[in-house]
C-alpha cells in the first residue's frame, strides 16, 4: 500500500482533509437528566467528541456555612444533612466529631455502635443510589428500580429511628439523638439479608452484562497517581488502587472492633472499577452492620450535654469516611453559644476537578458514564 493510500485510511487524515468540520459549544446542564443535580459542563464538541470541557458550579449555593454562624451548635446539625443529601445520616457525623474534639465530650459506647450502624446503613443506601443512577445513565431502568426498592428498606429503618427518611439528623454531638425503637435491631438484621439478596440480583442483571462491560471497562481510567494528585478520596480513590480508608488507616469511633476488609481494586481505575468497588463496599458495610447489631452494648445513647452549650474558645477538626469520600469539618469557637466559623471539606468538590482534565478526546456517551461513576452530589459541591 502506498503512502498516499495509507494516509487516506488514517482516520485523522479523513477528518482534517476530506471533511470540513466545525466545533460547537454544548452546555450540558444545569438542567440535564444525567448531571445529577444542577451541575453544568460547558463542552466544546467536534461531532460527538469532546474537545474541551469546563466545570460550572454554584447553582445550588445556599450559603449554609454562613448560616451556621447565626445558629447554635445544636441548631446547625440538621443543616449538615443538606450537604450530601444522598447520604443524610452520615453527614452530621464529622460535625459531631469536630464538636466533640472541641468540647472534649466523651461519647457512650452504645452511641458509638449506633453511629456505626446508622452510618453504614446510610453508606449502603448512598451507594445504591450511585449504582442506580449509574445504571440509569446507560438506559437501564430495571436495575434503577431494583436499587431504589432496596434503598426503601433502609429508608424505613432510618425513618423509625429519626423520623426522617432522607435528611436523617440522628448523630448529634455527645452521641445519638434517640434510643432505637423496640424490635428495630431484628428488623435491621432482616433487612440486611434482603440487601445481600438484592446485590446478587445486580450481579445477575448488570455486573456481567456484556453491554455494561463494554460501556464501562477501560472507559476513562484514572491512575493512582492522578487520583492522588486530584485529591480523590473514598471509593473513587480506592478504585484507582490506593489503599486509603479512614475506617482502616486511622480508625475513628469503634471501627477497629469489627472484622471487615478495605475494598481496593488494583486495576485500571476505569468506570467499571468505580462501580465494582461500591458493590464490594456495600457487602463490607453489611458485614459491619451485622457485627455491630450483634455486639450492640446496653447503656446510655447520649452523653450529658447541656442544651445551651458553650465550648471553650478554640478549634475542632474531624474527618470521617463518608459515602463519597473523606469529609471534614472545621469548627471554630469563640466561647459563645454559636460557632464563629464552620467549614466543610467536601469530597465531591475535589472529584469533579478532574473532569476538565479527562474530558478531551472522549465522546459524550463516555463523558456521561464518567460523571456518573464519580458519583458527585451537587449539594456538597456548592454548599
Amino acid at each position: 500500500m502506498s503512502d498516499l493510500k495509507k494516509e487516506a485510511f488514517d482516520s485523522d487524515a479523513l477528518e482534517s482533509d476530506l471533511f470540513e468540520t466545525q466545533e460547537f459549544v454544548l452546555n450540558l446542564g444545569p438542567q440535564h437528566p444525567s448531571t445529577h443535580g444542577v451541575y453544568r459542563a460547558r463542552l466544546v464538541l467536534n461531532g460527538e467528541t469532546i474537545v474541551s470541557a469546563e466545570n460550572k458550579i454554584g447553582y445550588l449555593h445556599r450559603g449554609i456555612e454562613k448560616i451556621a454562624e447565626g445558629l447554635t451548635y445544636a441548631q446547625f446539625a440538621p443543616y449538615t444533612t443538606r450537604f450530601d443529601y444522598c447520604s443524610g445520616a452520615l453527614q452530621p457525623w464529622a460535625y459531631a466529631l469536630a464538636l466533640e474534639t472541641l468540647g472534649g465530650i466523651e461519647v457512650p459506647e452504645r452511641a458509638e455502635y449506633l453511629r456505626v450502624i446508622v452510618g453504614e446503613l446510610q453508606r449502603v443506601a448512598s451507594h445504591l443510589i450511585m449504582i442506580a443512577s449509574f445504571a440509569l445513565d446507560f438506559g437501564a431502568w430495571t436495575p434503577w428500580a431494583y436499587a431504589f426498592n432496596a434503598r426503601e428498606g433502609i429508608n424505613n429503618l432510618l425513618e423509625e429511628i429519626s423520623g426522617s427518611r432522607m435528611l436523617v439528623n440522628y448523630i448529634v454531638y455527645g452521641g445519638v439523638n434517640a434510643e432505637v425503637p423496640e424490635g428495630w435491631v431484628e428488623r435491621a438484621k432482616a433487612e440486611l439479608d434482603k440487601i445481600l439478596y438484592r446485590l446478587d440480583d445486580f450481579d445477575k442483571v448488570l455486573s456481567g452484562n456484556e453491554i455494561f462491560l463494554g460501556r464501562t471497562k477501560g472507559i476513562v481510567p484514572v491512575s493512582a497517581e492522578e487520583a492522588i494528585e486530584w485529591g480523590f478520596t473514598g471509593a473513587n480513590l480506592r478504585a484507582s488502587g490506593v489503599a486509603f480508608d479512614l475506617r482502616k488507616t486511622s480508625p475513628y469511633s469503634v471501627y477497629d472492633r469489627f472484622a471487615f476488609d478495605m475494598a481496593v481494586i488494583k486495576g485500571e481505575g476505569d468506570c467499571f472499577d468505580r462501580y465494582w468497588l461500591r458493590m464490594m463496599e456495600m457487602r463490607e458495610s453489611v458485614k459491619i452492620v451485622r457485627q455491630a447489631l450483634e455486639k450492640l452494648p446496653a447503656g446510655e445513647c447520649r452523653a450529658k450535654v447541656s442544651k445551651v452549650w458553650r465550648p471553650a474558645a478554640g478549634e475542632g477538626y474531624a474527618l470521617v469516611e463518608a459515602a463519597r469520600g473523606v469529609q471534614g469539618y472545621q469548627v471554630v469557637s469563640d466561647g459563645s453559644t454559636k460557632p464563629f466559623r464552620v467549614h466543610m471539606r467536601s469530597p465531591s468538590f475535589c472529584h469533579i476537578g478532574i473532569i476538565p482534565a479527562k474530558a478531551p478526546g472522549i465522546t459524550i456517551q463516555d463523558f456521561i458514564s464518567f460523571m456518573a461513576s464519580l458519583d458527585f452530589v451537587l449539594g456538597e459541591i456548592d454548599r
Partner: protein
Amino acid sequence: MVDFLTALFNFWQGFWGVPKTSLAEALPWMDILWAFVYLIGAFVLWAVNVIILIWLERRVAGFFSERVGPNRVGPLGLLQPINDAIKILSKESVIPQAADKFIYMAAPLLIMTISVTMYGLLPYGPGIRPISLNVGILFFLAVSSTTTIAVLMAGWGSNNKYSLLGGMRTVAQIISYEIPMALSIIGIVMLSGSLDLGAITDAQKNLWNIVLQPIAFVIFVISAQAELTRSPFDMTEAEQEFVAGYHTEYMGMRFALFFMAEYANLFAMAALGVILFLGGSNGPFLPGWIWFILKTYAFIMFLLWIRWTLLRIRVNRMMMLNWKVLIPISLVNLLLTGVGIKLWQYFTEGRV
C-alpha cells in the same frame, strides 16, 4: 351510498371469516372506495394499537422493575392512555422562535403518515388486506426507511443542539441497520419465491420460517430493535445523553405524534416479524386475524422484555455490531439458504 354501506359491511364481515361478495369486481370505482375504507380501517387499527401499547408498555415495565405501573385510572389503569391524551391535547404547542417552522411542523405529520402507511400493507388475516401489493415487503421496507427523513427533519428543524445530535445518530443507525434487516428478509423471499406478504404467509402453512431461518430471525430481531430505536439501541432519544434526542423541542400534540408513531411502528415491525418468521395468520381452530394479533402481541412482549432488561450499547460498538457481525453473518446465511434451496430441489425434484 347504499353501495358504500354494503362495502363497509362486507369489509367488517371479513373479520368473521365470511367470504366477501364480489361487489368490488362488479363496480370498477369501488376499488377507490375500498382503498378509502381500508385506510380508515388501518387508521382505526393504528389508533387502537397505540392506546393498547402505551398502556401495555407502562404496565409491563412496571412489573419488570417491581413496580405496579399505571393502576389508578380505570380498571387496571386501562384508561391511562385516554387520560394522557386529554392531558397532552390540552397542552400548548409552542414553536421555538429559532426553529425552521415548516420543517419543524411537517416532521411529526410525516412520521405519522409513514406509520399509518405501514399498517395499510400488512395482511391481517386471509382476505383482510388493505392494500395488496405484489412487492409488499419491498414497499414496506422502503416506507419504513423514510422514518429517517422525518427524524432528521425534526432534529434539524428544531434548531437545538441535542436534537441535531440525536438526529445525526438516527441517520447513521437506521440506515446502517436497514442492510442486515433487508438481507435477513431476502432469505425468506428466496424460500417463498415471492415479495408479496400474503404469499409469504401462505408459504408457511405447514412450516414456519423461523425453523428454516433461525439465524435470520435473530438478525431480524436485533435490527428491528435498532430500526425502532428502542433499547439497547435507543441512541436517538438517549435521555441521559441528549435529553430527548430529536424531539427535545417538541411539546403537546406534536410530541404526542412522535410518541404514538414510535409505538405504532413497534406493532408494525412486530407484525412484519410475525408474517415473515412466525407463520403470519396461519394457525388452527381460531380465525386467522385472531392468530395474527395473538402472535404479534406475543412478539411485542418479547421486544418489551429485551428493552426493559438491556441497557444502551455504545455508539461505536453498535456500528461495529452492524458492519462487522450482522452483515457478514446475514450474507453467509444468504449463501447457505441458496445452497440449501438448490440441494432441496436436487433431491426432491431432481433438478438444479
